């Protein structure tokens, strides 16, 4: 048996040999995760998307690597118009299982069309803006934004819900119902939609009827408030109901038909239209544009201030580094100064020792060197002569040094020692012995 967490063998006591997890506990958690996935799948199949989202989130709490649950959750978010949330679930899923994962296909499909992705981004931005307007009390702007969004994205559930709330606040329950009908077409048991309908006094039986009648709506068509009359007329024709109470504007009275002469008012209409247009632009569109430009400016300012603060941090760090390096240089200079002083002192003490060493030591060293040459220990003799020369220079030391080098077959150094002897001590008794070597 292999561990469900890490794949290592499971011990006889039922625990993993590597991660020590209980196999039974993990198996139960994974089974529960699959159970909630199945529940979510069943709910998604009958378009109960809110219920499916709840079940799938629960499934992921039991096993976050449940690929099917994550992919389905992404798909539901996508269907509800929340493309980026869907994409996020698919990216996480593809990270857990990079091969043979349907999430990769979904991601490719979304990313292959940059225009679509940009549109989804714009949708999110516009919705957030509309939400901000609604929260700030500028409801007219929120209406305009939401209608624009929903005409391009007829599947955007959150947008319909916010629009319905705005209509309800405005006292326009019919239009709110229409928006909620769309929600129920996409997400059959949307709790928020049902709550709003109940608050508007729609009974549970009527809600069921509303759900049934919503099946006639094609959720892929662009949303438009003005087709309410058509929809209700269709209901009327299909159900054969002989009253018009449910129609959008039941108070309209049908009077006698007579042709209106509007020619004389045409110019006035045009002028009024222009004024209304300019006012609408001034009051509705211009503030939105200004807001978006201000928002952009704020973002840019924020970005620059972040950059400046990060640069300041870098500069202060670099200054600290410079200070520490300067301190190191000072320390190094002090150390080298100290070392130099020590060396000078050593040299001075050596000179003192050298001056005070008795000549007997020099003689003893030279004598010992001569003995070592006779004994064939030329290396030792070289060392002894060098020590003797350190004490003070002397013809004997140079002579035996040259002889020791000769014995060691180092003719170059031997010649050098003899030349020094000849130059420094031309009256030496050894000159005759070394003349042959120097002339060679």
């Amino acid at each position: 048996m292999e561990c469900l967490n890490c794949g290592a063998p499971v011990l006889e006591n039922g625990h993993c040999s590597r991660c020590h997890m209980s196999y039974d506990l993990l198996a139960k958690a994974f089974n529960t995760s699959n159970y909630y996935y199945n529940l979510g799948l069943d709910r998604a199949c009958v378009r109960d998307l809110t219920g499916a989202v709840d079940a799938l989130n629960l499934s992921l709490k039991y096993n976050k690597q449940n690929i099917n649950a994550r992919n389905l959750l992404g798909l539901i978010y996508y269907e509800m118009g929340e493309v980026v949330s869907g994409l996020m679930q698919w990216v996480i899923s593809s990270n857990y299982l990079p091969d043979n994962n349907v999430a990769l296909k979904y991601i490719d499909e979304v990313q292959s069309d940059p225009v679509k992705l940009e549109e989804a981004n714009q949708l999110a931005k516009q919705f957030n803006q509309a939400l901000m307007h609604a929260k700030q009390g500028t409801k007219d702007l929120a209406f305009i934004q939401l209608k624009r969004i929903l005409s391009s994205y007829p599947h955007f559930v959150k947008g319909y819900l916010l629009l319905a709330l705005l209509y309800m606040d405005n006292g326009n329950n019919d239009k709110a119902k229409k928006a909620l009908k769309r929600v129920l077409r996409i997400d059959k048991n949307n709790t928020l939609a049902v709550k709003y309908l109940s608050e508007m006094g729609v009974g549970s039986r009527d809600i069921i009827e509303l759900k049934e009648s919503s099946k006639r709506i094609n959720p892929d068509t662009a949303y438009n408030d003005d087709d309410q009359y058509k929809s209700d007329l269709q209901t009327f024709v299909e159900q054969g109901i002989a009253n018009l109470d449910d129609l959008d504007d039941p108070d309209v009275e049908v009077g006698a038909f007579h042709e209106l002469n509007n020619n004389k008012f045409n110019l006035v209409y045009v002028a009024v239209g222009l004024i209304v247009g300019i006012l609408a632009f001034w009051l509705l569109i211009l503030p939105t544009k200004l807001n978006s430009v201000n928002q952009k400016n704020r973002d840019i300012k924020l970005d620059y201030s972040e950059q400046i603060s990060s640069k300041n941090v870098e500069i202060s760090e670099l200054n600290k580094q410079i200070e520490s390096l300067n301190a190191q240089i000072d320390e190094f200079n002090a150390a080298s100064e100290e070392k130099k002083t020590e060396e000078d002192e050593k040299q001075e003490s050596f000179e003192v020792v050298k001056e005070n060493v008795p000549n007997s030591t020099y003689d003893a060293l030279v004598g010992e060197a001569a003995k070592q040459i006779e004994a064939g220990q030329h290396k030792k003799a070289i060392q002894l002569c060098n020590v003797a020369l350190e004490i003070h220079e002397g013809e004997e030391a140079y002579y035996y040094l040259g002889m020791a080098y000769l014995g060691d077959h180092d003719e170059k150094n031997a010649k050098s020692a003899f030349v020094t002897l000849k130059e420094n001590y031309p009256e030496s008794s050894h000159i005759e012995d070394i003349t042959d070597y120097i002339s060679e």
Partner: protein
Amino acid sequence: MINFDEEVRKFSPCLEVTQAEDAIYHNDVKDITDVLEEMYTQINSKKGE
């Protein structure tokens, strides 16, 4: 009766594409395996003390 201000406060903003990366990196939802791992780590650390 529905209170508009209260209800509208319950709406959360949508994720934008620029925020997706952060959302993915900070998606540290714990599942049962994580909880068990934490428990085992705590038990082992107590034993070590």
